[in-house]
């Protein structure tokens, strides 16, 4: 014996999916119709730097000592400008990720990176600098960043150059950054590396 047929609308209304869609629609419509208070969260994000610094070391033979110093900008022509918002104190971090260091160890016997920075209002020669051997005597140089925050999930084995705290208590400030690569002794590579590169990551953490 055939079960009795329900009318068309009864069959539709009994579907659970239809009931869910209906309730969701009512909630949305209801929120428009009702009175409510509005809070707003204002924010402003200023680019830390707008400069994309690219330095070309060129092509070199393997197992070759290179006395040339390669410049990514200079004191009078800085490579990057970092903007510090008013009333903020920032730690600026520049570092080479672990994966890039592994490649550098295969390609270089030695290579050193020096980062320079100064306030835009500072006089000539009033700058700070920090050097780090990325690879020295065939071994890459790990330094864990201090503190290891700012980039979740990157892991502890990173080569970091930690700049001192830069603060802007009164108004927005501009700082200049530039860097050098020297102390290059290429590795005794067996095959050409081809054109390749390593990154220097830059980020800041508010104190």
């Amino acid at each position, binding site marked *: 014996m055939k079960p009795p047929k329900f009318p068309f609308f009864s069959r539709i209304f009994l579907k659970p999916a239809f009931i869910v869609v209906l309730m969701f629609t009512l909630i949305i419509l209801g929120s428009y119709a009702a009175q409510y208070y509005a809070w707003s969260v204002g924010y402003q994000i200023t680019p*830390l*730097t707008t400069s*994309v*610094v*690219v*330095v*070309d*070391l*060129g*092509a*070199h*033979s*393997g*197992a*070759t*000592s*290179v*006395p*040339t110093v*390669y410049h*990514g900008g200079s004191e009078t022509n800085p*490579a*990057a400008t970092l903007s510090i918002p008013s009333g903020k104190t920032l730690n600026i971090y*520049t570092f080479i990720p672990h994966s890039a260091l592994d490649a550098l160890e295969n*390609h*270089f*016997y*030695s290579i050193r990176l020096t980062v320079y920075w100064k306030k835009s209002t500072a006089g000539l020669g009033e700058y700070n600098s920090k050097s780090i051997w990325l690879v020295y*005597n*065939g071994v890459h140089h790990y330094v864990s960043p201090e503190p290891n925050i*700012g*980039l*979740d*999930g*990157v892991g502890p084995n990173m080569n970091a150059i930690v700049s001192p705290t830069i603060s802007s208590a009164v108004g927005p400030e501009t700082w200049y950054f530039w*860097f050098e*690569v020297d102390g290059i*002794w*290429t*590795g*005794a*590579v*067996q*095959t*050409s*590396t*081809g*054109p*390749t*590169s*390593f*990154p*220097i*990551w*830059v*980020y800041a953490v508010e104190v």
Partner: protein
Amino acid sequence: MGLRRRGVACEPTFFKDSRKSLFAITFLLVSLFLSPQTAGNYTWQVNYTIVPLIQNVKPISSINMHAGRHGWVNVTEAYKLIVLKNGTNVYFKLMDTDTLIQHFTSLVVQIVIYDGLKAVVTLPLRFPEETCKYANLTKDNYNVDVRINYVAKSLTEHVSGTITVAIWAVEQTLSEEVGTYYKWTVNYTISP
């Protein structure tokens, strides 16, 4: 395509298919893990290219020598030398000379550098004093021949060893400081 016919109506079955569900979950997890690494930093970049200094190294079988005798070995086109910068000083150094002195009365390893058919420079390496020499070369690809002249010592038993020449370069300046280098080697045995 993710829809299963059931009577008249169709309903989505994407997440009922376990393989597709697994793919979707994996995709979401990978996206979550990757996003923190790609976000939140500015990147500066340092470009470079490194080309092997020596290439096409010819394989050499072990050299058999006789004690108390003089002999020579000529290895033509032992390897190619790739110089990328004008004024590059390429160094050649005879290594492990302490062992060589025990096996040879005299040993001269001549490095002959050719530009095409023309010999540019010949560098004789001999112990104990002239073990390291250099050639100032312009940007080019060179062929290198190695000629070995030896007088083996009057040994009473079989000995074997390796003649090793270290090769490295310095751009623009002179420095005999040995860091990393390529090795050109040839094995030998001396019979009484």
